[in-house]
Every structure is written in C-alpha cells, then in structure tokens.
C-alpha cells in the first residue's frame, strides 16, 4: 500500500512539476495546467483505441501534444499576462480550462475514456510475500527515471543553468544576457509535456473524463506546488510523494474522511509556511 501511494505520488509529481517551475519562474498562476494532462490523455486514447498504436509508443506523442499546446497558449495568451495581476491570470486560465472541458466533451463525449496498457503491464506478481501491481511498478520506475533525467538536465546542463538562473533572479539573468523569454517558453513546453505524459499514464489509475482540467486532480496539483514551494523540484517531489501516500492511506484506513485530511494538512502547512516547505522567496 505504501508502494501504491508512492506510485500515485510519482504521477502527481509528473503532473505538477511543470506548474511548479513556471509559477516560480514568472509568478504565473496557471489553473489550466491540467488541460495539458487531459490533452496528453486524450491523445493516447485516440492513438491506442482508434489507430491501434501500442501503448508505449503513444506516450512520447502524449508528451509532444502537451508540449505543443502549452507553447501555443504561452505564445498566444499567457505571454501578455506575465505582468498582470494574480486575479487576471487565474481568470484567463480558468476560462481556458472551461473551454477545454467543453471541447473534450464535444469530441470525446463526457463518458470516461480508457486506453488499455499492454498485457505485460497488467496484473500483479508476488515478491517477498507481498503483492505488487505491475502497472504501479512501471509507474514508479518511469517516474523515477524521468525525475532523474529532469534533475540531471536542470543541474548539469547549460539549459538547466539558465532556467535556474531565471527562476532565482529574473532581472539578473536578463542582465547576464540569458534569453529569459526563450528559456521560459522551453520550460513551459517541458512542463506541459510532462503533464501530458502524466495524463497519459494516469488514465489507468485515475481515469480520464472531460472534466479533468478542473477536477480534484487540479486541486492536488496546486497543493503539491503550494506545499512544495514555488520553483523547487525537490519540494514538489517530496510533497507529491507525501500527498500520494497520505491520500492512498487515508482512503484505505479512514474512508469516511474522504479528502478532508488532505485539505486540513494543506491549510495547516500553508498557514505555517505560506511559501511552501522548500520555498525560498
């Protein structure tokens, strides 16, 4: 069960890490982040069910779909809103989420969709007397792999150094000749792509409905970002794992509490540290 929670946490991490970085970098409150996840999910559903692609081959395309949409939105709309108030950013992104919900309902109906993973990822096996779901293991491994790639990319490459510089001090980064706009666009694409990938992987765990962009998953993603601290990948990682395990354990041991416990913990944490556990600013 601890492991199930961990796998769920990895999923939440994939969904939220992009938002964390973009929020930390440009202070842009993007409530449409889960739209990218839904796009990735629907892309996978289409490829697997209608065109007969193998599940694993559809995943990179889910990433691309999320990345593409986020770049388009960033260039067309969000770029104009970096200096706007929190409220305006909230409203425009909620508007986009609303529109995407209606669009998904239009193209895919409001029925929950599914895309079966291949047979070798279904089922479970025993290890040291415990039962493990194969798909959960796949999730955990994939999640860890992507995290490792992400950390390596951000800590040991030139691109990563630029992004970190822009998050820490945008004006200084600009002064040093870093093209912050471009770095931000790429980060946005990366974040949207990871969300798309997360959305595709999540179909099997949390399902896929047209209301996903404004569902409880968005709340969880925001919790991860707010609790983990803006722009902190490590913070998001820890917060996502803790949230995943708490949520799974809570549903198992205290089903009557529902999500109450999660919200309570979030409110308490935010009151204690408004900038999140690992927030710097």
């Amino acid at each position: 069960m601890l492991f199930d929670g961990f796998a769920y946490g990895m999923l939440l991490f994939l969904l939220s890490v992009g938002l964390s970085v973009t929020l930390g970098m440009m202070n842009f409150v993007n409530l449409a982040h889960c739209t990218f996840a839904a796009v990735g999910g629907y892309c996978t559903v289409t490829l697997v069910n209608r065109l007969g692609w193998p599940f694993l081959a559809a995943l990179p395309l889910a990433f691309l779909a999320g990345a593409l949409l986020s770049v388009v939105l960033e260039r067309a709309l969000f770029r104009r809103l970096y200096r706007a108030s929190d409220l305006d950013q909230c409203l425009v992104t909620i508007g986009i989420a609303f529109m995407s919900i209606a669009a998904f309902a239009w193209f895919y109906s409001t029925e929950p969709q599914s895309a079966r993973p291949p047979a070798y990822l279904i089922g479970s096996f025993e290890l040291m007397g415990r039962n493990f779901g194969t798909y959960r293991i796949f999730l955990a491994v994939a999640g860890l792999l992507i995290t490792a790639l992400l950390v390596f990319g951000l800590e040991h490459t030139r691109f990563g150094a630029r992004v970190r510089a822009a998050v820490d001090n945008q004006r200084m980064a600009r002064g040093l000749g870093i093209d912050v706009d471009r770095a931000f666009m790429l980060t946005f694409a990366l974040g949207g792509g990871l969300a798309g990938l997360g959305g595709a992987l999540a179909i099997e765990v949390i399902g896929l409905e047209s209301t996903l962009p404004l569902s409880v998953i968005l709340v969880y993603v925001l919790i991860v970002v707010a609790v983990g601290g803006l722009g902190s990948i490590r913070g998001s990682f820890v917060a996502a794992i803790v949230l995943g395990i708490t949520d799974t354990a809570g549903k198992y041991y205290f089903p009557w509490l529902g999500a109450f416990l999660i919200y309570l913990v979030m409110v308490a944490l935010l009151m204690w540290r408004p900038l999140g556990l690992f927030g710097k600013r």
Partner: protein
Amino acid sequence: MANVKLNPLEVVFWLCTLLPFVLAPSYLSLASQIAITALFALSLDLILGYAGIVSLGHAAFFGVGAYVAGLIAKHYWTEPISALLLSGLAAGILGYALSHIVVRFRHLALIMLTMGFGLLLAEAANSASDITGGADGLQGFRVPGVLGFGFDMFGRTAYAYSLALLFLCFLVCRRIIHSPFGLALRGIRENATRMPAIGAPNLAHLRKAYTMAAMFAGLAGAALTHTTSTVSLEVLSFGRSADVLVILILGGAGRLYGGIIGAIIYMVARDQFSGVNPQYWYFWIGLLLVTVVMLLPNGVLGGLSALHKKRQ
C-alpha cells in the same frame, strides 16, 4: 457624503427590476435566482473589488447560510425572516473566525487558502451526512411563505422576497463603501504598505470587510434555501465559488452594480444556452471570460463607462 443618494439612473435601474412581474411572469423563478446570485456577487465585490482580497472559496459562506437556513426550517421553525438573520449571523461568525487567517496572506497562498477552506467545508458537509443529508442534500422541509405571502409555484413571492433582500443589502453595501471605512478599504487595495503608514489599521479593516462579505453571502445562501426548499452539496462546491468570481469579473469588480449586471448576463445566458446543450455552455463562458479579461479589464460596466468618457 454627496453621492449617498440614489441618482436617477439608479432609480430607473431598480424600477426595471420590477418589470419581470409584468413582462415575464413565467421567468420569475429564474429572476429570483438571479437576484440571489447578484447578492452573492455583491458580497464578493466587497472583498475583491473594494478590499482586493482574491477568494476562490467564497461559496463556503453561501453554503453555511444555506445549510443553517435549511436546518432551522427542517428541525425548528419555518418563519423565514428570523432564520435568514440567523443564517447571516452564522456565516458572519465563520467569516470573522477565518478572517484572522485570511487577511495575513497574499498572492498564491491566499488563493490556495481560500480554496482550501472552501473544499474543507464541502468535504465536511459531505462526510456529516446525518446532519446535512450528504450527497442527497437536505430535503423534506418547506417554507410556506414570508410575511403572510405564500410561496407560489410561479415564484412571485420568491422573486419579491429575493429582490427585497438584494435591494436592502445593496443599500447597506452602498452606505459601507461610501463611508470613510470604504475609502480606507480602497486605500488598502491600491497601496497596502502606505495605509498603515498614515495610521490606518489595515488588518482590522480587512477583517471587518471579510466578515461583512461572509454575512451577505450567508444571507444569499439562506434566501436560496427559502425559495427552493432544498439544500444540495452544490451550494458549497468549488464550481459555485468559481462561477461567482466569473460573474463579478464579467460585470466589473469594484463598482457595486458589476455583480448585479454580471448575474443578469450570466444567468440569462446560461438559461438560454444550456437549454440547447448543457456541456457546451462552458465553452462560451470560458471564451467570454478570456475576452473580458484580455479586452475589457474592468468588465462590462468598466467598458461602458470608458466608452461614455470617450464620447464626452
């Protein structure tokens, strides 16, 4: 206090609100929903438009008002006016309690906290199903009428009741924002560091405004309960908090009539469009929202007044 008196245009507006009785008797129950939503949006305007507190969980107070009114009607008595006042008081007390926390935060933490409190309350109402009826809602009571007028099936009394409540609350809000206290609130919104420097107690002002907004939202919730005789979990939902924000922004925040105009546009449009296709209604509202924020930063009313100034 030069502009405390209603000007002629406002008198005409309020007279127009009586028109549905004559012109559209079959839409009176929609009109009463609009009046209630307008009051809810007005309460949000007090904190968002005047004090600059962004809230994504304002439905918490609406819901508390609705549930208190429902519980009173179900278990105690069905006289609405006293129940209305008690519901407003209950929401106000909750607002006062939360205001101590909320006013200390800004930006993302504020948005997350207000949303968190709203969700917390919705979950609590869902879990305490032996009191609130859970997902089935609170049913099995009926408020027979108000001040001797029975609630009829055409919604005549319901609209009169909601409209009277809206008008009274509007007058109170108007008085508040034209008072020195209202001026201080706008000062805080414009420059939160300068106001304490000239000796205004920022946090105390914000707490007061938040409490009052909560109270008005509670009154709106109670009126909804009285006119519909049911309470569902939806009154506490995140969707309701988001809707009222959309309504206020659509009409124009910080100008009292914004919430009312927004409620009229939004509710009438929803009534018309969702008859055709309820799911796709959200597409239009989303598009409207993006357009209003990008092109009309002060809402419909702000756009109109800018146009008016240009003409002059």
